[in-house]
């Protein structure tokens, strides 16, 4: 039951009570009125009438007396008529009394009175008759005897009746009074009761309404003041208050949700500000830095004293900005903050986008600044948001990447020119530059003839450079040419300045030298040219083009992009003029299958593990000379015939392994095979035969092994076509030594004194023979195609080489 129902019931009850009391009062009033009426119209007049009876009786008596005693007959006759009338009146009154009799007693009395009256009137009639007949004495005697007797009797009865009637009247009035006072009492009591009941009901209802409301109000105030939106007001009722509480609770839930959301957002923003690698601050009035800023800002400005600082001091002190620009920047802050957004548009172009800030230790940071307005609902700029990015590294990288790009473009230009042509161009360019230098040094003042010669020479160099598409060079030559051209004019803008001209020429010479050095050093194209290198370099030209494209497309604002592009450029540049060892040795490797066949062996597998080393192209022929002998020796002396190998549970075809690594600033190339090993017993035997050692000597395996480098020493059972031609290990050693290298035998097992021992031939060469390329993986060598099949430029840098990952190819 809800509150409105309760109030309705209370009102209804009140109405019912009022109607009941009113109704009862009316009924009682009506009843009392009847009573009053019966008293006033019945009992009282009847009592009065009973009193009349006595006087009427007296009248009759008077009349009788007159009739009897009056001597005048006329008077007697008149009294006779009067008596008759009085008699009638008395009879009527008595009859009325009979009618109005309240009780049996009264009725008995009336009856008695009637009887007595009849007797009375009979006596009167006898008496009057005596009179009328003239018997006057008889009449008088009768009057005083029987009439008087009946009269006394009747008087007594009537008197009793009157008393009786009076008593009846008194009783009726008393009853009426009682009834009236009863009515008053009952109505008063009922009214009082009604008031009490309604009051109780009202108080209960009031409490039922106000208590929960004040309880609700209390809890609501508590929630509001504590801001604890997890709390709810308990719903104990289904009425209006209950519904209010439900509504309130759902509002609290919404507030909880949105405050949770707000909290989450604040946390998110705080987290962002704490962790983003960008400086963010906001500037309030008076160019003051707001307390909320990103943590990285402290890294950029190298101070934790940021909040509340003057922006001009924090950001713009010790920068490359002049005093005038600084005052503009300061004024711009003032012109925008607290003003309409349009002021930001007005002055945005004056907001400095990049500054160079000198740190206390002298380092210069390049900072990129980005300004945005923070506005309120009315489009008033309340603060300025300033994003600060430290782009020092980025700019440096971008500059480096640009330099790399330029260099790659130059390489591309050079590679497009055949080596001989390029050589010719450089030679002639240097000749003309030399000539110009001589002319400038000789000429002290402006000289038409000298200028013509200078211009012609430079024009020729430019023409040649342009013909060969050497654009980066052309631009510089063009400048020098322009200067000469200007000086040749009738009224030149510049004067003949020897120093300036020499400086300019030196610049051109340096550019040409740069081109020449790239050609000679990076591209390994020094001199007139070498056909096969040309072919190899043509392949890499594509890689260069791709790298240039990558550099050009790199986003200059992305550190990652720039680093990646630079790495690619770096690799491309490093790989120029180099080749994988497999490629450098391709003619050797190609010859191995046929050699194996001649010796009745299967073509060996070749395993190359280069550990990221590529060999420079110029060293290819040296390497070929060395490894032609060593690999042939492996097949001839090391690897066994298939039947023999199979018997020893080895694969039918042998394996030759080549491993490149850097050891103590030398390039170390180790060659090994899975053949029978070094025939130490046989070498010792031969050494004894040739008296190189004696039986008495204790000679170590190492010393024995060293003997194979002696001139003319060969262990082959017979002189084969392959390795027993006298050009043995001694020749190889001489060759290696000529290249400032060394060669040695290193045992790979612990079987000292055994007949055969596992070993590898270790060739050390100057490190300049090879280059290490980061992130470059060994190249697979596919001998059947004789070509490079895959080059992995993976950026993960996984250069780890294991025997498993090394490539095995059927040679």
């Amino acid at each position, binding site marked *: 039951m809800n509150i409105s129902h309760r109030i309705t019931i209370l009102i209804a009850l009140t109405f019912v009570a009022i109607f009941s009391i009113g109704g009862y009062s009316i009924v009682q009033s009506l009843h009392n009125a009847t009573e009053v009426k019966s008293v006033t119209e019945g009992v009282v007049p009847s009592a009065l009438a009973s009193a009349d009876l006595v006087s009427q009786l007296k009248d009759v008596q008077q009349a009788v007396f007159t009739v009897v005693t009056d001597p005048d007959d006329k008077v007697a006759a008149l009294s006779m008529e009067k008596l008759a009338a009085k008699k009638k009146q008395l009879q009527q009154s008595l009859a009325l009394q009979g009618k109005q009799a309240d009780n049996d007693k009264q009725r008995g009395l009336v009856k008695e009175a009637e009887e007595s009256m009849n007797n009375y009137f009979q006596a009167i009639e006898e008496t009057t008759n005596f009179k009328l007949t003239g018997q006057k004495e008889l009449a008088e005697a009768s009057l005083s005897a029987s009439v008087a007797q009946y009269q006394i009797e009747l008087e007594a009865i009537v008197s009793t009746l009157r008393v009786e009637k009076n008593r009846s009247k008194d009783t009726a009035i008393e009853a009426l009074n009682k009834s009236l006072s009863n009515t008053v009492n009952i109505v008063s009591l009922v009214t009082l009761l009604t008031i009490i009941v309604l009051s109780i009901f009202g108080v209960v209802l009031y409490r039922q309404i106000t208590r929960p409301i004040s309880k609700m109000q209390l809890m609501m105030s508590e929630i509001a003041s504590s801001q604890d939106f997890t709390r709810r007001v308990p719903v104990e009722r289904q009425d209006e208050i209950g519904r209010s509480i439900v509504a309130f609770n759902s509002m609290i839930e919404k507030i909880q949700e949105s405050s949770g959301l707000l909290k989450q957002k604040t946390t998110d923003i705080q987290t962002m500000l704490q962790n983003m690698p960008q400086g963010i601050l906001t500037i309030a009035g008076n160019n003051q830095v707001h307390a909320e800023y990103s943590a990285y800002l402290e890294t950029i400005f190298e101070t934790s004293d940021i909040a509340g600082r003057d922006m001009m001091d924090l950001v713009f002190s010790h920068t490359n900005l002049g005093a005038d620009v600084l005052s503009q920047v*300061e004024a711009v802050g003032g012109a*925008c903050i607290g003003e309409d957004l349009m002021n930001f*548009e*007005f002055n945005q172009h004056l907001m400095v986008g990049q500054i160079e800030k000198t740190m206390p230790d002298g380092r210069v940071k390049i900072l990129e600044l980005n300004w945005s307005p923070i506005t309120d609902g009315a489009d008033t700029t309340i603060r300025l948001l300033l994003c600060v990015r430290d782009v020092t590294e980025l700019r440096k990288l971008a500059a480096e990447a640009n330099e790399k790009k330029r260099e790659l473009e130059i390489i591309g230009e050079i590679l497009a020119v055949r080596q001989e042509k390029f050589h010719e161009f450089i030679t002639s360019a240097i000749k003309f530059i030399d000539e110009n230098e001589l002319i400038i040094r000789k000429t002290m003042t402006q000289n038409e003839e000298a200028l013509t010669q200078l211009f012609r020479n430079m024009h020729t160099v430019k023409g040649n450079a342009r013909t060969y598409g050497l654009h980066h060079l052309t631009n510089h030559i063009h400048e020098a040419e322009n200067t000469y051209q200007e000086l040749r004019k009738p009224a030149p803008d510049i004067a003949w300045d020897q120093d300036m001209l020499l400086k300019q020429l030196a610049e051109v010479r340096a550019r040409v030298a740069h081109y020449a050095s790239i050609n000679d050093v990076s591209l390994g194209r020094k001199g007139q040219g070498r056909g096969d290198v040309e072919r190899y370099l043509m392949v890499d030209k594509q890689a260069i083009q791709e790298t240039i494209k990558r550099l050009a497309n790199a986003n200059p604002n992305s550190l990652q992009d720039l680093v990646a592009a630079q790495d690619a450029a770096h690799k491309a540049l490093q790989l120029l003029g180099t080749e994988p060892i497999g490629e450098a040795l391709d003619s050797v490797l190609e010859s191995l299958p046929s050699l194996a066949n001649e010796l009745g062996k299967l073509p060996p597998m070749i395993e190359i593990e280069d550990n990221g080393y590529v060999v420079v192209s110029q060293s290819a022929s040296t390497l070929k000379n060395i490894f032609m002998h060593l690999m042939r020796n492996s097949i001839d002396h090391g690897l066994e015939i298939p039947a023999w190998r199979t018997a020893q549970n080895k694969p039918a075809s042998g394996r030759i392994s080549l491993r490149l690594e850097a050891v103590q600033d030398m390039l170390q190339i180790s060659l090994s095979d899975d053949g029978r090993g070094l025939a130490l017993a046989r070498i010792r035997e031969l050494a004894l035969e040739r008296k190189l050692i004696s039986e008495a000597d204790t000679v170590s395996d190492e010393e024995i092994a060293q003997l194979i480098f002696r001139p003319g020493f060969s262990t082959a059972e017979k002189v084969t076509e392959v390795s027993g031609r006298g050009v043995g290990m001694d020749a190889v050693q001489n060759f290696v030594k000529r290249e400032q290298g060394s060669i040695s035998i290193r045992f790979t097992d612990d079987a000292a004194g055994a007949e055969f021992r596992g070993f590898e031939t270790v060739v050390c060469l100057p490190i300049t023979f090879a280059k290490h390329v980061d992130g470059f993986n060994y190249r697979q060598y596919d001998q059947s195609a004789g070509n490079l099949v895959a080059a992995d430029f993976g950026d993960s840098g996984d250069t780890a080489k294991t025997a498993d990952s090394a490539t095995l190819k059927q040679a």
Partner: protein
Amino acid sequence: MAQILVVDDSGTVRNEVSDFLKANGLTVTPAVDGKDGLDKLKSDPGIKLVISDVNMPNMDGITMSEKIRSELNNNAVNIIILTTENNPAMKERGKAAGIKGWIVKPFNGEAVISTLKKLVA
């Protein structure tokens, strides 16, 4: 009848600003100081925008702005001040005088023309 009143005691700035605005199809009345500016504004009800320097002889730009509002009872005209410094006291007065914009010198027309055009539309 002109759309814009340009108030500056420097002929160079006045001409530069005026020429730029004219080149962008706007009509301009020049004034040499605050007093002159008030007179010109009084006599030309078509002016919708006042661009004024601050420091000028006879009457400065801020005082002129105050008088435009108080003496001429002209609350409709937009006022933009060309300024060089960050002066909070001046800005406070300017705000009270209903100055709408602050352009830091040097005046760069290209950057502000579209907004100025909106103000005289």
